[in-house]
C-alpha cells in the first residue's frame, strides 16, 4: 500500500480542481432551486447534481477511485436502501393521503 500511495501523495492541484468543480455544481444546484419549473423535473435535476457531487467527493476526496471494486460496491448499499425505501413509501402518497397530516 505504501508504494501505491507515493504516486498520488501530493496531488494538491487535483484537490483544487475538485473543489472548483464542486462549487460549480453547488451553483448549478442553487440555480435549479431558484428556477420555477415543474416540481418533478426540479427534483430530478437536483437528484442528478447531488449524485454527481457525491461521486466527485467520493472519487477524489475519499480516494475511492484508487480502491478495489468490492469496496466501491459496498459503499453503494445506502443508495440502494434509499431507492427501496422510496419506492415502497412513495406510492402511498399518490392517493388521497393528505388527510393524514393537518396544518395545526
Amino acid at each position, binding site marked *: 500500500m505504501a508504494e501505491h500511495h507515493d504516486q498520488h501523495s501530493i496531488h494538491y492541484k487535483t*484537490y483544487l480542481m475538485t473543489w472548483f468543480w464542486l462549487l460549480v455544481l453547488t451553483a448549478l444546484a442553487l440555480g435549479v432551486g431558484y428556477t420555477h419549473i415543474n416540481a418533478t423535473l*426540479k427534483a430530478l435535476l437536483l437528484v442528478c447534481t447531488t449524485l454527481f457531487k457525491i461521486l466527485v467527493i467520493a472519487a477524489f476526496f475519499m480516494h475511492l477511485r484508487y480502491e478495489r471494486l468490492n469496496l466501491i460496491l459496498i459503499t453503494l448499499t445506502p443508495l440502494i436502501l434509499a431507492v427501496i425505501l422510496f419506492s415502497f413509501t412513495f406510492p402511498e402518497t399518490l392517493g388521497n393521503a393528505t388527510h393524514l397530516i393537518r396544518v395545526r
Partner: protein
Amino acid sequence: MDSTLTEQQRILASDWGGGKSPFGTSWSKFMMWIFIISDALTFAAFLITYGFMRSISPEWPKQTEVFNMVLITFMTFVLISSSAVMAMAVAAARAANPKLAFRFLVLTIVGGLIFLGCQAFEWTHLIEEGARLTHNPWGVPQFAASFFVITGFHGFHVFSGVTILSIVAIRAAMGKYSGDGVENAGLYWHFVDVVWVFVFAFFYLL
C-alpha cells in the same frame, strides 16, 4: 489428483483464505468505511422519511421565505472548502510533512467551527420565531420537526468531526500521527460533507 487442487486448497489460495486483505485496505480504513456506510443508512432513512412526510402534507412552507438562503449557501461553501483542505491535509500527512498537515487540519477545524456557529445562529433565529419540534408558525408541524432532526443530526456529526480532527491535529503537532489516522479522520469529514450535499439539495432547495 496430484495436479488438480482440492477445494480446500483453492479456498486457501483465494483472497478470502485468510492472511490477506480482500478489500485491499488497512483494517482501520475498512472499519471507517463500514461505519460511514451504516451512518449513511441512518441519513438515508431520515431523508426518505422527510420526503414521505412532505408528500403527504397538504402544503409545505416555502424554504426561501423561512430560511436565510445566503447563510445556507455560505455554510455549504465553508463545508465544501474545509473538505478540500482536509484532502490536502491527508496528502501532506502521506508525504510525511506533519507541519503542513497540522496547518491544513487547523484550517479544516476552523471551517467546521464556522459552520457550527452559523448553524447555532440559524437555530436560535428560528426558535425565537417560534419553531418547535411539535409546532411552527409556517405550516405543518412536520416541517420544523424534520428540520431540527435532520440538521441537528448533521450538526452533531460536524461537532464530532471537529472533535476527532482536533485530536488528530494535536497528535500531528506532537509528531504522533500516522498517514492512516489522518486519512480515516478525513474520510469521516468528507462523509459529513456528502450528507450536507443531500440536506442542502433536498431540504433547502427542493
